[in-house]
C-alpha cells in the first residue's frame, strides 16, 4: 500500500495526465457529477457517484463501426477506428468497477467485440472506496464491498491522505509509473476507514434485501408471474433506467446512407422502447408489461442462468434515483420476495 498527502492530489493528477488522458468525476453547474477529462484546475467531485455510469468509457452511447464506399460493383469496407490512446479513469466506485466484469462477460466472450476489447486494453481503472453510501445503495446485495473496490488499483481518501493499492498487473504498472510521488505505508488508516464504512453499510435500508426468490424459483414460474402486470402498470416506457444503468448492454446497429456510401454505427438500445426487438416479421414484445419484464428477467434470471449465478445488477442505485415514476429493481425484488 502507498500513500500520497492529500494536498499533493493536484500534482498527482498532473503527473498521470502528462503520460495519458485522465478522466475524473467533476461537479457540474447544478452540482451533479460527470466524468470529465482532467486539465489543470479540474477539481475532483465529492459526490457519491456520477449520474451516468462509467460504462461510457468502454461501451459509449454511439460507436462508429465501419464505412462502406461503393465503387461500381465493388464495395470497400473501411475500418475507421481511432481508439489507440491509453487512458485512466480515476474515482470509479465499487459498483461501477464490478459492472465492467459483467460487461466483460458479454463483450469479451466469443466472438469478442473488438471495439469494446480495444477500449478495455487501453483503459486503466482506478477505483475509490465509498465512505458515505446513500439510501439507494445496495451493492452489498450482490456481494460487492464498497469499502474495498475492485479495479486495476483501489484508492481510499482520508482527510489528509490518498491511499492506493494495486489489484492487477495493470494497476501495479500504473503505481510504478507515479511511484516517485508516493511513499510506502501500512494499511492501518485504510483498515480503520473500512471498519467505519462497514458499520454504515450494514445499516443501509436495503442491506438485507434478499435475491433468494430468483434462485429458488424456475425461469418459467417467474416469467409467468402475476406480479409483472401490476409492477409495470405505470412504466412510462422511457429509457432512463437502461441508459443510466452500468450493466445494461443492449445495442442497435444502423446504417446511415450518406448518398455516396454507408456509415454503419451502433447506439445503446433500451428494452423499454416500443420498437426494441422489432424484426422483419414484427415484434415479439408488443406491450409494456413484456418489455418491463424483459429488463428484470434479464438482470435477475437470464444473466445469472448463463453466468454461474452472477446477477446482472451491481446495486449502484441509479435507476432508483432517476426513474420518473420511482419504479425500480428493488421494488421488483421485494415484491417477489414477499410472496
Amino acid at each position: 500500500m502507498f500513500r500520497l498527502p492529500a494536498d499533493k492530489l493536484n500534482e498527482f493528477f498532473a503527473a498521470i495526465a502528462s503520460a495519458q488522458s485522465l478522466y475524473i468525476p467533476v461537479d457540474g453547474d447544478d452540482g451533479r457529477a460527470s466524468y470529465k477529462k482532467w486539465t489543470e484546475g479540474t477539481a475532483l467531485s465529492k459526490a457519491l457517484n456520477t449520474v451516468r455510469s462509467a460504462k461510457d468509457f468502454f461501451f459509449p452511447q454511439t460507436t462508429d463501426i465501419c464505412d462502406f464506399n461503393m465503387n461500381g460493383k465493388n464495395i470497400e469496407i473501411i475500418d475507421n477506428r481511432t481508439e489507440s490512446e491509453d487512458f485512466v479513469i480515476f474515482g470509479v466506485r465499487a459498483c461501477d468497477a464490478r459492472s465492467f466484469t459483467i460487461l466483460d462477460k458479454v463483450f469479451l466472450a466469443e466472438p469478442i467485440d473488438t471495439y469494446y476489447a480495444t477500449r478495455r486494453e487501453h483503459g486503466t481503472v482506478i477505483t475509490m472506496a465509498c465512505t458515505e453510501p446513500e439510501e439507494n445503495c445496495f451493492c452489498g446485495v450482490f456481494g460487492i464491498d464498497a469499502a474495498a473496490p475492485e479495479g486495476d488499483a483501489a484508492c481510499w481518501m482520508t482527510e489528509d491522505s490518498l491511499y492506493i493499492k494495486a489489484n492487477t498487473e495493470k494497476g501495479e504498472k500504473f503505481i510504478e509509473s507515479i511511484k516517485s510521488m508516493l511513499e510506502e505505508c501500512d494499511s492501518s488508516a485504510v483498515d480503520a476507514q473500512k471498519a467505519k464504512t462497514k458499520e454504515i453499510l450494514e445499516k443501509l435500508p436495503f442491506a438485507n434485501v434478499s435475491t433468494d426468490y430468483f434462485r429458488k424459483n424456475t425461469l418459467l414460474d417467474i416469467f409467468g408471474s402475476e406480479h409483472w402486470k401490476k409492477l409495470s402498470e405505470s412504466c412510462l416506457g422511457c429509457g432512463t433506467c437502461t441508459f443510466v444503468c452500468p450493466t445494461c448492454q443492449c445495442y442497435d446497429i444502423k446504417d446511415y446512407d450518406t448518398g455516396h456510401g454507408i456509415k454503419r454505427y451502433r447506439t445503446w438500445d433500451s428494452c423499454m422502447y416500443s420498437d426494441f426487438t422489432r424484426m422483419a416479421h414484427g415484434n415479439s414484445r408488443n406491450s409494456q408489461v413484456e418489455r418491463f419484464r424483459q429488463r428484470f428477467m434479464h438482470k435477475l434470471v437470464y444473466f445469472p442462468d448463463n453466468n454461474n449465478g452472477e446477477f446482472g445488477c451491481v446495486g449502484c442505485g441509479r435507476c432508483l434515483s432517476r426513474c420518473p415514476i420511482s419504479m425500480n429493481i428493488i421494488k421488483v425484488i421485494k415484491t417477489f420476495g414477499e410472496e
Partner: protein
Amino acid sequence: MQEAVIKRAKELLADGSVNRVVGWKAGEFAYDTTPAVFTSAEELDAGFIYNDFCAPNLSKYIIKESRKEGKLLVFLKPCDTYSFNQLVKEHRIIRENVYIIAVPCTGKVDVDTVKSKGIKGITGMTSDGENVTITTLYGEKTMPKSETLGDKCRTCKSKKHVIFDEIIGDDGEVNTDGARFELVEKLEMMTPDERYDFWRNELSKCIRCNACRNVCPACTCESCVFDNPNSGIQQRAATDSFEENMFHLIRSFHVAGRCTDCGECTRVCPQNIPLHLINRKYIKDINEFYGDYQAGSDLETRAPLNDYTFDDCEPSIVYKRGGNE
C-alpha cells in the same frame, strides 16, 4: 388530507360509482411515490398516499385508463387539471368514463432539490406544510418546505382546479404574478451567442432517454416520429450536436400552444436540463402576440396557434413594428 381522500375513494368503490382508483402509491422512502391503480379498499389501505411528495401528474395515464371498461376515479392536483382539460379538449380522454376529485396542493417536495443542499442518505421525509423533516443515515435535518420545492412548484402557475366533479378542501387562485417568466426574460436579454451557448451546454447533456417525451401530457402521438423506422430520423442516441438540439426543438414546437406548463419534463430529466424553459418561452410569446392564453384552462377557447382571426399579429415582424400594436 390523506384520510379524507382514502375515505372518499372507498365510498365510491363501495357504491359502485367507480371500479378503480388512479392515485399515488407509497414507496420505500416517502419521496419515491409511484402512480398506481387501486381496485379495492384493502389496496387503498395498504399503499395509497396523498401528501407533499406526490409530484407525478396522473393526467396522461387517463388516456389509456379512460378507454378501459367501467368508470374510474382519479385525484387531480391543480396543475394536473390543466393537463386533463387539454387532453379532453383534444379528444384524447373520454371524459364521461372519469370521476375527478380535486385535491389541494401547496407545492411538492423534490428530492433532488433537497439533495442539492448537500443532504445525503435520505431514508424518510415528513412535511407539515411549513417545514420538511428529513431523516438520513447521517442524522436528522429540518428545512422550510419552500426551499425543497422543485422547478415546477417554485413558480406554480395556479392553485385553482379547472375541472373536477367534486373537491376536497378549498379551491385556490390562479397565480398572476408572472414570476414563472423571470428566467425566460433573463434568456431573452442574452445575446444570441450567449443564448446559444446556454442551450448547447444544457442540451449537450441529453442522453435521449425520452423521459421528457414519455411523461409529457401533450406528447400523445400513437407512434412518435422518432420511433418510426420509416421516418428516417428514428434514433436511439443523438449522434451529433445538431440532433441534440433538434430533438428538443422539434418536440417543443409540436406541443407549442398545447403545453400547459406542468413542468414534468424538467422534473423527470435525469440530466437536469431545464426543458420547461423552452416551452415557457413559447407560452410567453403567445401571451404577448395573441393576448393571455393558458392551455387547458377551459374546454371552449380556441387555441391561438390553431385559430385565425383577422387581427392576428405577424410575429416575424412584430418587433420591427414596435410590438404588437
